[in-house]
């Protein structure tokens, strides 16, 4: 069903990205990177695109990257949303539960502190970095799966 000819530029970019990601991942971590996704009050647009990383097109698990259920199993926190004040404590606690060494990637414009909710009384004005230290920002509203892959490679190659 998915054995399809690579025609568009987008597809060839996906292949290039996949190869780079695989190389970087292997070199740095052997075969695994465990991600805990934390929604800190997003509109759920970013979640939809993070979900797409698991679909048979992107299939991020083939590189040894997987989403885990607990921060205690995670190497990386993938945080979305502007960080609502109601979620700030939960985000901080999740960070504290994640073993060191750990990374934080802020996903989407909101998480970077420049989304449409920025001015609100109910959100942190600077996004995720107001609560926990951020290693990488992936911009977009929401960022596409390709953007997310590109971001993860950047982090791993650093």
């Amino acid at each position, binding site marked *: *069903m*998915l054995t399809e000819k690579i025609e568009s530029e987008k597809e060839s970019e996906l292949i290039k990205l996949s190869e780079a990601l695989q190389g970087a991942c292997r070199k740095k971590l052997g075969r695994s990177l465990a991600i805990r*996704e*934390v*929604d*800190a*009050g*997003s*509109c*759920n*647009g*970013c*979640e*939809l*695109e*993070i*979900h*797409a990383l*698991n*679909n*048979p*097109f992107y299939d991020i698990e083939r590189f040894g990257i997987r*989403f885990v*259920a*607990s*921060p205690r199993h995670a190497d990386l926190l993938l945080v979305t*949303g*502007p960080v*609502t*004040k*109601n*979620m*700030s*404590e*939960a985000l901080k606690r*999740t960070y504290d539960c994640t073993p060191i060494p750990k990374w934080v990637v802020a996903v989407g414009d909101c998480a970077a502190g420049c*989304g*449409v*909710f920025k*001015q*609100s*009384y*109910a*959100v942190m004005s600077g996004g995720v970095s107001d609560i926990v230290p951020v290693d990488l920002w992936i911009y977009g*509203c*929401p960022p*596409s799966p390709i953007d997310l892959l590109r971001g993860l490679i950047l982090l791993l190659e650093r």
Partner: protein
Amino acid sequence: MKKLELSPHSTEEAVEIEAGKRKKCWSLEKVSKERWIELSKEVASGKWTLFGLWGSPRKVNMVLLDESQSKLQVIELETPLGKFPSVAIEVPSAARLERTIYDLFGLIPEGSFDNRPWLDHGKWQLRFPLGNILPPEEQKPYPFFLSEGENLHQIPVGPVHAGIIEPGHFRFTMGGEIVVRMEERLGYTHKGIEKLFFEASIEGGAEIAARISGDATVAYSYAYALAVEEAIGITPPPRAVWLRALMAEMERMANHFGDIGAICNDAAFPRILSRCAVLREKILRFSKDFFGHRLMMGRIVPGGLTVDLSKEGKEKLYLLLKEIREELCSIKYFYDSKNSLQDRTVGTGILNARSAKLFGAGGFIGRASGRNFDARKCFAYPPYDKLSFESPLLEAGDVNARVWIRILEIEQSSFLIEQILNNLPFGNTLSVMKEPKVSGQGLAVVESFRGDILLWIEIEKGKIIRCHPRDPSWFQWPLLEKVIVGAIVADFPLCNKSFNCSYSGHDL
């Protein structure tokens, strides 16, 4: 199983069909306190369905639906003393809405049985952000309902959940393996959206509306556009009217595929998840290629659309529809023929018809429990008044019925898109707003994939002074608490996914 065939479409250019103007479906009534109480009693007796309830600094509004007449009654009550008679005493679905009105505006629902905060978790550094702002009070622990009995224990879940989903808290009280009570605590994604609207321009409001709930971004932009257009008296070009519905149906299909896959995956059947995920991705890629955004965010604006569908896009969409229908046949076959899957979904999480009606449960949740309501049919906003489709209805009310409604809705959406493609009018897709400084009120109801979205807007001299979007989830979340009672915890993911209520759309 009968294979669905795509009817042959004409290769010639489409015939032009004039899009009808949207009929005003509501009327406003300013009432006294006594009439307000009388009306809440009428809702309790079943004459009306509670469709919305919101506050403003000096008044409260309630929207009542008369399904048989396709009419909405907007009720307005002045609150000079900062109080209004509680509707929740008579109508339980009003309870959370009233708690929200208090949290945001400080208006007190007199006589209410539940005075606990709802969206305000004591973290905003202020109280009543949209009313008379007061300094915060000392933070108290949230009082969950007490369940007492021998050997009962509690399981707290969230707000950070185990999957890639939105945050919320569920408190399970268990008697051995059986759920005795489940109580939700939401509000974690509260972003202060209603206040942001208050300070926004019409264009700025469209950006916020598109981000109320990311999975229903088309439906929210659609509702916002219709409400603004009604308030300031503009009509979008016919081509835009038709393409809006096309986008809404594509969004419906994409989300239903996502959810059907996720439900089956939670029942340990990932094969259907993979197939559904592929189709969902293909729809998103099409949207990116021809509408410029994978979720079609911000494409529908007051006055029309910011994009147009090219001829190439049209041809590609016919092909995509064909593929979707063929694949759907095999998904149906798989879903229906696997005992291990049916074991988990049939008879699980039953929502009875009475509760669905009482709460006015919208979308596939209501329609899987015998509530025959679909905003596209009831209000027949253009172009749905010119399109023929069915709104599937089942009685069983279990997870299986909700899955089936979604499968049938995908089929109907594919027929709708085909009709739209066959009859798409020509012309441009965006009208210019002639008089941007006008004032008025507008109300729109749009059927999102999840159910009916209500959006109320008041505009004064081109500026938004009040905008209240009401997500279908408001009336669906409380029912999830109900269906899980008596089940085992392992059934909760299935119930939750089959409901798939919005956190962001609810918390605002």
